[in-house]
C-alpha cells in the first residue's frame, strides 16, 4: 500500500514538474506563433529574446531591485528591442519571409555575443523570489513554480481575451487570415505587425524573467528553449494561439514523464518525435494552423 502511495506521489510530482517548464515554453510559443501567423517570419532568434529577458532580470535584481520590478523591466526592455528590430530589420523582409528567417539566424549569434562581450559567458542566476516549499502528502510544491504557472495562466488568459473579444483582436485575426484584404478594409496591418512583434517579444521577455526565477541561464540558453517553443508552435499549429497553449501543456507533461519513467536521456527526443508524428499525420498541427500570411504576390 505504501509503495502505491509513493508511486502516486511521484506521479503527481512529475505532473507539477511538467507544468512549470511548460509555462515558459508556452510563452515562447505564443510569441513565435503570433509573429509567424502575421508576418510569415520564422524568428529563430526568439529564444535569444527570452535570454535577454533573463539577463535584464538578472541585472535589475543584481542592482538591488525587487523581482517584480525586474520582471516589468524585462518585459519593457525586450518589447522595446522587438520594436527596434522589427522597424530596423524585419520590416525589410516582410515580402520575403525567408530573408527574415536568415536574419533571425544571424541575430542569434549577434545577441549571444553582445551578452558575452558585456557580461561574460558564465551562468547567471538570481535568488529565488519565493522560497517556500509546501509538502502535501509526499509531494513537494515549490511556491516559485506555482508563481510561474499562475503568471502564465494570467497572461495567456489576457492574450485570449484580447485576441478573441476586443476590436484589436478581431482586426489582428483578420490580418492573419488575409493580410491584403484586411488592409483593404482599412486595418493598419503594418502597425499590427509591429504591435505583434512587440507583444511577442514582451512575452519572451516575461518568459526569460520567469525562467531565471526557476533556473540559472547562460547567453546560450535561448537555443534550447526556442527549439521547444517551435516544437510546441508546430504541434499546436503555427499561428494558432490556442494550439500553442495546449501543445505547451502536452509537451511539458511528455517531457516530465519521459524523464521520469522512460529513457531519460531521450527526453528531448520524445518531444521532437511527437512533433514529427503530428506534422506527418496533421501537417497543420493538432489544432490547425496557417501557412503564414495570405497576401497578393
Amino acid at each position: 500500500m505504501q509503495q502505491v502511495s509513493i508511486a502516486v506521489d511521484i506521479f503527481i510530482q512529475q505532473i507539477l514538474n511538467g507544468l512549470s517548464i511548460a509555462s515558459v515554453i508556452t510563452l515562447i510559443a505564443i510569441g513565435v506563433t503570433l509573429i509567424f501567423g502575421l508576418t510569415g517570419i520564422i524568428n529563430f532568434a526568439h529564444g535569444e529574446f527570452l535570454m535577454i529577458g533573463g539577463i535584464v532580470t538578472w541585472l535589475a535584481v543584481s542592482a538591488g531591485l525587487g523581482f517584480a520590478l525586474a520582471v516589468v523591466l524585462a518585459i519593457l526592455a525586450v518589447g522595446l528591442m522587438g520594436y527596434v528590430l522589427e522597424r530596423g530589420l524585419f520590416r525589410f523582409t516582410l515580402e520575403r519571409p525567408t530573408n527574415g528567417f536568415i536574419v533571425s539566424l544571424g541575430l542569434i549569434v549577434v545577441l549571444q555575443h553582445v551578452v558575452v562581450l558585456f557580461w561574460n559567458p558564465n551562468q547567471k542566476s538570481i535568488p529565488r523570489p519565493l522560497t517556500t516549499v509546501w509538502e502535501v502528502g509526499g509531494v513537494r510544491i515549490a511556491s516559485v513554480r506555482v508563481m510561474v504557472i499562475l503568471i502564465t495562466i494570467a497572461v495567456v488568459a489576457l492574450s485570449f481575451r484580447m485576441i478573441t473579444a476586443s476590436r484589436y483582436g478581431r482586426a489582428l485575426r483578420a490580418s492573419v487570415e488575409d493580410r491584403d484584404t484586411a488592409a483593404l478594409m482599412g486595418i493598419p496591418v503594418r502597425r499590427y505587425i509591429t504591435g505583434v512583434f512587440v507583444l511577442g517579444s514582451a512575452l519572451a521577455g516575461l518568459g526569460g524573467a520567469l525562467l531565471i526565477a526557476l533556473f540559472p541561464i547562460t547567453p546560450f540558453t535561448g537555443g534550447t528553449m526556442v527549439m521547444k517553443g517551435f516544437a510546441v508552435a508546430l504541434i499546436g499549429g503555427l499561428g494558432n494561439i490556442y494550439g500553442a497553449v495546449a501543445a505547451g501543456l502536452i509537451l511539458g507533461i511528455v517531457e516530465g514523464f519521459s524523464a521520469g519513467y522512460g529513457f531519460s536521456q531521450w527526453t528531448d527526443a520524445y518531444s521532437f518525435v511527437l512533433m514529427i508524428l503530428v506534422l506527418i499525420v496533421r501537417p497543420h498541427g493538432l489544432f490547425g494552423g496557417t501557412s503564414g500570411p495570405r497576401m497578393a504576390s
Partner: protein
Amino acid sequence: MKTVLKLAASAALCLGAFARPALAEDNIVKIGVVAAESGSFVSAGHTLPAGVGLAVKQINDAGGFKVGGKTYKLEMVKRDDRTDIATAIAATQELVRDVKVQAIFGSETHDFTLAMAKITQPAKIIHFAGNSTLAKILTPDSVKPGGEDHYLFQSEPQEFQRSGSTARGVLTLLEPLLGFKPKKSVMIVGNDATGQFLSSYYFKALKAEGQDVPDIIFYPPDTTDFSPFLTRAKSLNPDIIHFWYNGDSTLTALPQALELGAAKSYFLFGVDPGIWKEKQLSADVPVAMSCVPVCWGESSNPKAKTYFDAYFAAGAPHGVTSSVSLLYHDYVHFLVEAWQKADSFDPDKTVEALLSLHHQGVVSDDLTFNPTHQVTHATEVCAAAPGGDISCSMQQPPAEAPKS
C-alpha cells in the same frame, strides 16, 4: 638575365622567410591553446587559457628560459573552439600549419582531443590534454617512438584513479555528517560522450566501495529543468545523489534537488567550495564537492592558495571549475623544464625529457608521466555540513582499476 636572377633571388628570400621556424623570430616560442571560451563547456574551457597564460607570464617575468645558449620567451596563441568539434579541428590546423606552435594545450573535452591529436601527432607537436579518458589511445604501441601518439600527454590522472579517489573521498567525508554509513547511491549524469564514458568508471568505483547503485539517470546536455530526473531519483530513496560531471549543470540541479528533498545527501562533482561560499549556497543535508584536482575555495594543499591568488589576480573569473586550470598550468612549466633539459626544441628529445623528469608543480611535488604518457596524482574532496562548515582532504588514487 639580371632581372631574372633578381626575381629568382627575391622569390628565394620570400620562400625562405615563409619556411623559417616560428621560434627563430625574436626568440619567441609560440604555444597554442584550444579551448571552449563559449558554448556549453565554457566554464571549464576558459580555465585553459587562464592557466596557461599565467604560467607563460610567470616564465617570461622570470626572464624566460635558456635553450641552446639562447634565451627564449613564450607567447600563448589561443583559439576558442566554441564547444564545437569542427571549430576545434580548424583551430588546431591553423595553430599547427600557419602559426607554427611548438606545443598545444587542450581541449577539455575527450572527443575534441582525439580529433586534435590526428593533426598534432603527425606534425610532431607536443600536445597536453587534461582528459582522464585517453587510456584507450595512449598504449605502449601508440606512444613509442614512431607511434601515432608519441607526442601526446595526458595531464589528468586516469579515470579509474580519479573516480576511485573521488568515490572514496565522498563516502569517507559524508559518513560522519550523515551519522550512518551510506549504502544506496544514484548517479545523475550528462548524456554526452564524456558523461557516458566517465560514469562507467565512477559506477564501478562506487560498487568497489560497497555501494548499491540501482540507477544511473542520464539527462540531455543543456538541461536546465532537472526536476523530472530528480523526482525519478527520489523514487529510489537514495542516501546520496551523485551529480556527475558538468559543474554548471550540477549547480543548476542542486537547488531543485533540495526543493524536492530528493536524497539524504549529495555529491557535486567539479564544484569548488569557493563557489559554494561565493554563491552563499546552503543545504539542510550534507553536500560533498570535488575539485579537479585541487580546490581554490578551501584546500588542504599548501600551495593552492598562492597559485589561486595569482590566478585570480591575473583576471581569471572565480569559476565552478577554476581548478581545471591546474591541469594545464603546471605542464607549461613542466614543458619548459623538459626543453631546458633536452637543450633543444626537437620534439623527440622533448618527449624523452618529459618522460624522465620529476617536476615540482602546484598539484604535486612529484609530477611524472608513466611510460604511456599519463600522470598520477591525488584528487581533493570537500564536504559542507548542514551548518556550513567545510572540510577537505586529498584522496590518493587506487593503485589498480576495480574488477568489473
